[in-house]
Structures are given as structure tokens and as C-alpha cells.
């Protein structure tokens, strides 16, 4: 028994079984047996899976449809994202409040003119 995907404990036999069911790409194998869905996102198993497909289907490795690489690059905790995004939201909120205050002040001083404009 050879382990192909360390994160998800997927063996070579499982990958071959997926190929027997009609899978011809790394993405299909990922979807059927989960090889490449773990924390390392296929960094270890992607090439091994490609080799197995190439061997089983007697197809050069270069002809195998490439998988999609998805963000994030490394596992990121929600609170780390929120530390940055929270600041951004706070800044946006302050800017919006300031703009609204400014607009209100402007409207107060220009009120008669604006009214006249509307009538015309």
C-alpha cells in the first residue's frame, strides 16, 4: 500500500480505482477520492497523481489537463483576516461618516440656492 496524498490518507489503489471509473484529470481524482483537498492543497500528491494517470492511461504527463490552483496559498485563520479587514472596514466607516458630515454642512449652507434650483 502506497500513500499518495498524506493529508487525506489516500492510497495509490484508490487513485487507480478512480481512473478505472473514468477519471482522466487530477481535478476529477481530487473530487472523487479527495487527494489534494487537505491542508497542503495537493503540493505533495499533485505530481504523484499526474504520474499515476500518465502510467495508467499511457499518456504523456504533459497531456494531462492541469488542475486549478486555488487561494489561499496557506491555511489562514478567520481572525487573522478579520484583523486586517476589520481595520479596513473601520476606516471606511469613518471616511463615510466624515463625508456625510461634510455633505450635511454643505447642504445647510447652500440650502436656499438648492431649493431655487429645484424649482427651476
Amino acid at each position, binding site marked *: 500500500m502506497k500513500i499518495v496524498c498524506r493529508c*487525506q490518507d489516500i492510497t495509490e489503489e484508490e487513485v487507480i480505482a478512480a481512473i478505472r*471509473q*473514468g*477519471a*482522466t*484529470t487530477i*481535478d*476529477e481524482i481530487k*473530487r*472523487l477520492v*479527495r487527494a489534494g*483537498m*487537505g*491542508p497542503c*492543497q495537493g503540493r505533495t500528491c499533485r505530481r504523484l497523481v499526474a504520474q499515476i494517470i500518465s502510467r495508467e492511461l499511457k499518456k504523456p504527463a504533459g497531456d494531462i489537463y492541469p488542475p*486549478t490552483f*486555488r*487561494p*489561499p496559498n496557506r*491555511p*489562514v*485563520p*478567520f*481572525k487573522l*483576516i*478579520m484583523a*486586517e*479587514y*476589520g481595520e*479596513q*472596514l473601520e476606516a471606511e466607516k469613518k471616511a463615510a461618516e466624515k463625508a456625510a458630515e461634510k455633505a450635511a454642512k454643505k447642504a445647510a449652507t447652500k440650502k436656499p440656492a438648492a431649493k431655487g434650483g429645484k424649482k427651476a
Partner: protein
Amino acid sequence: MKTSFDAIIIGGGILGVSTAYELAKAGMKNICVIERRYLASGSTGRCGGGFRQQWSTEANTRLAIRSVRRLEHIEEELGYKTEFFQGGYLILSHSAEETAQFEKNVAMQRRLGLDVKIVDRAEAKKINPYLDVDQIECGTWCPTDGHISPFLLTQAYANAARRLGAEIHLWTNVTGLMKKSNVFFVMTDKGVTYETPILFNCAGSFSRTIGQMLNVEIPVDPYRHEILVTEPVEKLWNPMIIDFGIGLYARQEHSGGVVMGMGDPNEPVGTFVGSSMHFMFEMSRRFTLLFPKLGSLRIVRQWAGLYEMTADAQPVLGPVDEVENFYQANGFSGHGLMLAPAVSELLAEQVLKGKPSLPIDDLHVRRFRGKQEFHREKSVV
């Protein structure tokens, strides 16, 4: 290679393969599914994987109840493990207005025989201990809803359809359609032209394009919806949680990762399925708002798929008036996987017996012709 079939289905998503299976099971021979890439490479393989019966319209609720009854025995029927799990659905309300709508929904759903009820904060806390229940008013709870692996269900149907003699041609893109004296000619980028008397449009987000090839207007538009999954952790909770107010859904999958997604009203029409930073930020905000204790969970991967939306968020189903024997099963507006087991069966009955056992006339495409206002399905994230 055989190119003449009794029925051709365009689209190798859940609708395409389940329809092929149902037709073959009902005795039809010579069926072919034509798929642009590989099985479940479109919307099916990118979905959240939930199935629920809690809808605001009767048509959807009826279809969903039937679908779940089917799903309960699908593993034995198709002989394939699908990660089918009835963990329930908890839908949260934030306002009196929402609660009033939910009360109406629950009354209708109970009338149709569904085991569903309104739960208060304490009960919601019991169902999901990580939920910050102070933010919600109440919830609706249906224990027979749940989730399933979209890939495995598609593969299960495909394998079963193949066993019954259906063919599935992958990596074949339909480039043109023509109908001449009751025969459809299906042209493909492989240079092969297929012939068939009966044609199905299960092309999901590309259904409008397929319809246009025969001059039939199919009012289905694709919208990108993003989704992410966390690292696998020990069991947190069983049900799918939906919140229309905050705009998110979250479930813990079989392998332990929490899958979550949200709707974005600013998303333009289009078939782009790339990922965005905005989604990761906004999803994190919404998730930690509702589940403040889970801030340390790590995001492993994010992706996107297409909701094939119609104006009333209900599917386009059955024949069309303009072209005979051109059947539609598309426009599922984000809930194709959960309705497929019922819909494909009804469609096969419509084609082979002339009358489905549950009327699907309400979902005929003619309801969109020359109309602007629709009674919209409200329970969509």
C-alpha cells in the same frame, strides 16, 4: 463510434446524468450524454452540497420532499456511497418580518406533510452550540434535510446509467444544433455530428446558449457564487445553517471541513469562476459574526461556481412550445443538486409516458414569455 441515439442529453452535471439514468431505467435504449469537460465540472461540482425541503413556494417544496424521499434510498439503488447525511437544516430569522414569512412557509410545508417546526433561541443553541443566538429571533428546523457529496452522487448516477447501457461522451463541446424533419443534429467540436429524435438541455449556465442554437429563448442567466472550506476539525455540528439576513450558509462536511458560502447582490451576469479577495474578507466577517467562537478555524481553499438564475428562482422544466421534443431541465437557481432526483424522474415520465406523476406545468418556460413580474422563491441565499 455510434452517433445516432434515441435521446441525447446536453450536460454532464447532476441533471444530465440523473436524467440519463431515469430514462435508461424506464427502458429507453441508446442514450448519450454529451459533456463539455468532465462529469460535474460545472455548477454541480462547485455547489454547497445541501438538500432541503424548506422552500417558500409550493412547487419547490413538493419537488424537494419527493427528492429527499428518493435520496434516502439512493445509495442502495445506485450501489454507490455518496456521503448522504440527514443532519437537518436550521434556517435563522433576524427580524419580525422574516419570522412572519417563515411562519407562513412552515404552515405551507406542514400542510404538504413535512416534519418542520419553528425553534426558539434555546433550541437553536442546542442544535448548534457555536451559534451566537443572541443575534437571532428564531429559526426553522427540519431534521430530514441534510447534505451529500455532489461529485459522488453524480458519479453514482453516471455509473448506474452506464451499466444500463447509456453512453457518456466527455470533453465534447456542442457547437451547433439543427432540427430537420423531426431529427436533431448535434454538432460538436470533435467534428462528430450526432443525431437524435429527442434532445435534452441540461447545460446549466450555458442553457441559454444551447436554446439559442435552436432559436428558443431560455431565460437563464449565470451568476458567480463563491464558497470556501476550512481545515478538517472534529465534529462541530450536524445541520446546514442558513441565514438569509446576514447572507450565508455553512455546513460541516463528512471529512470535517466547514463549507460556507454567501450571496452577493452586486455580482454581475457572467460565466467567470475565479476567486476574489473580497469574498474571503466578507465571508470571514459574516462567519465570525454568527460564530464568534470559531475565529481560529483556518481557511484551506476557496472556489466559485455559477448559479443559473431565472427571474422567479425556480427551474425551467419540461418541453417548449417552439420546438417539439426539445426538453429543458435547467435554471435551477442554485438548487439543482437537491431537486435532481425528483426532477429527472418526472422528466423521464413526461417523455416516455406523456404525463409526469407530479404536475410540472407550472415550471414550463412559457411562464416567462411576455411577463415582467414573477412570484419569486424567497428562500435563496
